[in-house]
């Protein structure tokens, strides 16, 4: 009997890649894609690594493919923007070993800064695209993607969404099929994209697309990559539904057994002939898709009448309720509470090293604070409110540069602070800081080095000394890197961000410099499992802060740190179970009412 496993889509992609004989995998962590590589790292026979960013990951996968092995790169949706440069030309060169690029969209922005629909990338870069609708398909389509990559000589895009990545479903386990590496064959016309060679490859791509289109229209239906379900039709005539991905599952719940379904597994190129045949057999055709009218636009352009975004929302994540309400106007019967609940927004953890720095920064007047992508974006929330912008990975430093130049040019006088995490700095902040130094802006760049990639769940990075597979690695020396980028040694301040005196002294010095300055806050994430080096540098002891209720004046200044361990009701108390003894509240208290237990 085949073993049945309950796997998330991410776990299933990892299993599928392993079964497909994958040899090389690279990724930058990003919700909801992160667990693919974390799972792969546990399989034998596959080498997997965290790259500093998604562009590096795709280029590395392209190189491994060119050298003859099956390779994989995974990322969240916005990661493909970073990797778009290699992506478009990789489509021209094609592959040697099969190469699959997994991209995970986040409809509803559960953990993202936008909800871009990456299916447009497949069309723009002319990349064969597969979209699984559950965990079993996530595994099967991953394996298929490697075969199609080699057959059509193209990287293949496997597009997931949050609900595919993070939903568990039943998956049957298979065996790993080893694929012999192909010997390296120098092929300048194929891999060197000079204009002369690229023009030839561009024409070759058109031929490849014809083959892919035939596959999408015919073979994919015959082999069950597309699912076709024919129903007899109900009283309201024959309803047909074209869908793909998780949206298909919502459609199945809403339309039930009375509708016919064409669930597409291949969504680039779009199998319009197949859709035309399906549509001819139904009276009403619905296109049920999440986010943009990607399929609908192409179906309409082919002259096939359908109903899609005129009823189905284009913004946000779908679910069965939304589809049902949109199509049939029916509301579910529910239990309505008569008491309102209070929102529970995420917050910086108790003991988070960012809190001390943000508290100090929040007291400064006339500052522009550009922020970045990571836990520290939560520094924008009240009561700290110490982040003014968050655009993209690495954007804080470049935006800070532009803002500082604008301030200097207009004479408006604000100080500009750019806040970026260690992993984000390695990802794409380094070139931005190079620009600050080269073009000379008075930005204070704050590298919040919490010794790990925290937001996505504690991944290693070039600053931590370890790799994804547990090996030792050289550490990036951030102060030395900053010096070599052109920041003067005297303008670099390395501090413990939990010590408010150090925070204030560093801000004073950096603001006084009137030239590019860098503050490096160095303290581990409170959730980090300390390495031996961490324990040696930061100590292992954790304690608890307590409030002496006789000394406490209920001024509630300590609550302005936004610490979730401090409860403010009639009295102010510290939750012993949450407190780590970081002492930020103790330093803030003007009455000496807070002490560290046992000291």
């Amino acid at each position, binding site marked *: 009997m085949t073993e049945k496993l309950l796997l998330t889509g991410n776990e299933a992609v990892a299993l599928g890649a392993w079964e497909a004989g994958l040899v090389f995998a690279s990724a930058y962590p990003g919700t909801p894609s992160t667990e693919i590589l974390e799972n792969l790292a546990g399989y034998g026979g596959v080498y997997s690594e965290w790259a500093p960013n998604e562009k590096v990951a795709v280029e590395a996968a392209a190189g491994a493919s060119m050298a003859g092995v099956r390779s994989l790169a995974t990322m969240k949706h916005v990661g493909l923007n970073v990797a778009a440069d290699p992506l478009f030309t990789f489509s021209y060169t094609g592959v040697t070993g099969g190469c699959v690029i997994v991209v995970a969209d986040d409809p509803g922005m559960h953990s993202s800064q936008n909800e871009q629909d990456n299916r447009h990338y497949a069309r723009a870069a002319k990349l064969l695209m597969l979209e699984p609708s559950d965990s079993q398909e996530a595994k099967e389509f991953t394996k298929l993607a490697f075969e199609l990559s080699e057959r059509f000589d193209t990287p293949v895009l496997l597009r997931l969404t949050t609900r595919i990545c993070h939903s*568990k479903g039943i998956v049957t386990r298979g065996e790993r099929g080893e694929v012999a590496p192909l010997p390296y064959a120098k092929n300048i016309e194929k891999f060197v994209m000079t204009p002369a060679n690229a023009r030839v490859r561009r024409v070759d791509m058109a031929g490849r697309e014809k083959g892919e289109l035939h596959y999408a229209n015919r073979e994919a239906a015959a082999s069950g990559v597309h699912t076709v379900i024919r129903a007899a039709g109900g009283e309201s005539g024959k309803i047909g539904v074209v869908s793909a991905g998780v949206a298909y599952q919502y459609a199945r719940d809403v339309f039930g057994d009375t509708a016919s379904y064409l669930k597409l597994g291949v969504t680039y190129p779009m199998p319009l002939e197949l859709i035309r045949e399906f549509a001819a057999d139904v009276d009403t055709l619905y296109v049920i898709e999440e986010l943009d009218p990607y399929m609908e636009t192409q179906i309409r352009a082919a002259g096939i009448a359908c109903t899609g975004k005129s009823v189905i929302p284009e913004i946000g994540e779908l679910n069965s309720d939304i589809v049902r309400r949109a199509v049939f106007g029916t509301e579910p019967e529910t239990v309505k509470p008569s008491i309102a609940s209070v929102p529970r927004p995420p917050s910086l953890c108790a003991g988070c090293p960012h809190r001390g720095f943000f508290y100090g920064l929040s007291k400064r007047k006339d500052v522009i604070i550009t922020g970045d992508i990571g836990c520290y974006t939560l520094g924008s929330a009240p009561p700290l409110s110490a982040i003014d912008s968050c655009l993209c990975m690495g954007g804080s430093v470049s935006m800070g540069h532009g803002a500082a130049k604008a301030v200097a040019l207009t004479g408006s006088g604000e100080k500009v602070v750019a806040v970026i995490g260690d992993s984000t700095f390695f990802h794409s902040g380094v070139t931005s800081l190079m620009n600050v130094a080269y073009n000379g802006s008075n930005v204070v760049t704050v590298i919040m080095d919490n010794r790990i990639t925290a937001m996505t769940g504690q991944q290693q990075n070039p600053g931590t000394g370890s790799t994804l597979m547990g090996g030792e690695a050289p550490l990036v020396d951030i102060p030395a890197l900053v010096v070599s980028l052109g920041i003067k040694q005297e303008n670099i301040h390395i501090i413990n961000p939990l010590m408010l005196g150090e925070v204030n002294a560093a801000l004073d010095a950096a603001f006084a410099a009137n030239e590019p300055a860098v503050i490096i806050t160095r303290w581990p994430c409170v959730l980090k499992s300390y390495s031996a080096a961490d324990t040696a540098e930061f100590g292992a002891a954790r304690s608890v802060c307590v409030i002496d209720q006789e000394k406490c004046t209920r001024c509630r200044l300590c609550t302005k740190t936004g610490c979730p361990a401090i409860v403010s009701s009639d009295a102010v108390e510290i939750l012993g179970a949450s407190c780590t003894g970081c002492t930020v509240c103790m330093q803030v208290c003007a009455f000496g009412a807070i002490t560290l237990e046992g000291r």
Partner: protein
Amino acid sequence: MNEKNAKAILLVGVGGQGTILASKILSEGFVSAGYDVKMSEIHGMSQRGGSVSTQIRFGTDVHSPIIGEGEAGVIVAFEKMEALRWLEYLRPGGRIIVNDYEIPSVPILLGAAKYPAGILAELSAKADALVIDAARIAEELGNARAMNIVLLGAAVRAMQSDGLADIDWRAIIEKNVKPAFLELNLRAFDAGFSA
């Protein structure tokens, strides 16, 4: 409408309470019982002290991995205010198991809002509510952190009619917890089951 074959259970709580582990064990139980199962959870920024939910649908052939409003036959709330927040997902007449446990959210900590009063009475008036002091039970067993498994035991009890009573829960729990915590978790499960 067409979900005749799929039933649903919703587990809600606050990041760090162990809802995901409890949901994982429960889902594996449904697989052992021979059901098709889908379970959905949200990771990332929402976990930093935010509201967390995991949704399980089971039946002969499950399509959507996420449940709709008014669909959950059972809600297990690891925290009182989360029970209130997710109440609209309960099927009218459904059972809600609620941990008598408060975790104030940031607006409450800051004094900008008050933790709602009268939640348990509201739940009892609107649904078939079972209130459990899982923290106290787990603490008496030796570790307050095991309250997630106490609540799991109560959930399994509530779903006995779905064929969950005859599952080898011991084996599934053993697979999912560290050996050092196995006995504690088994006792927590039993305590929740008989609560």
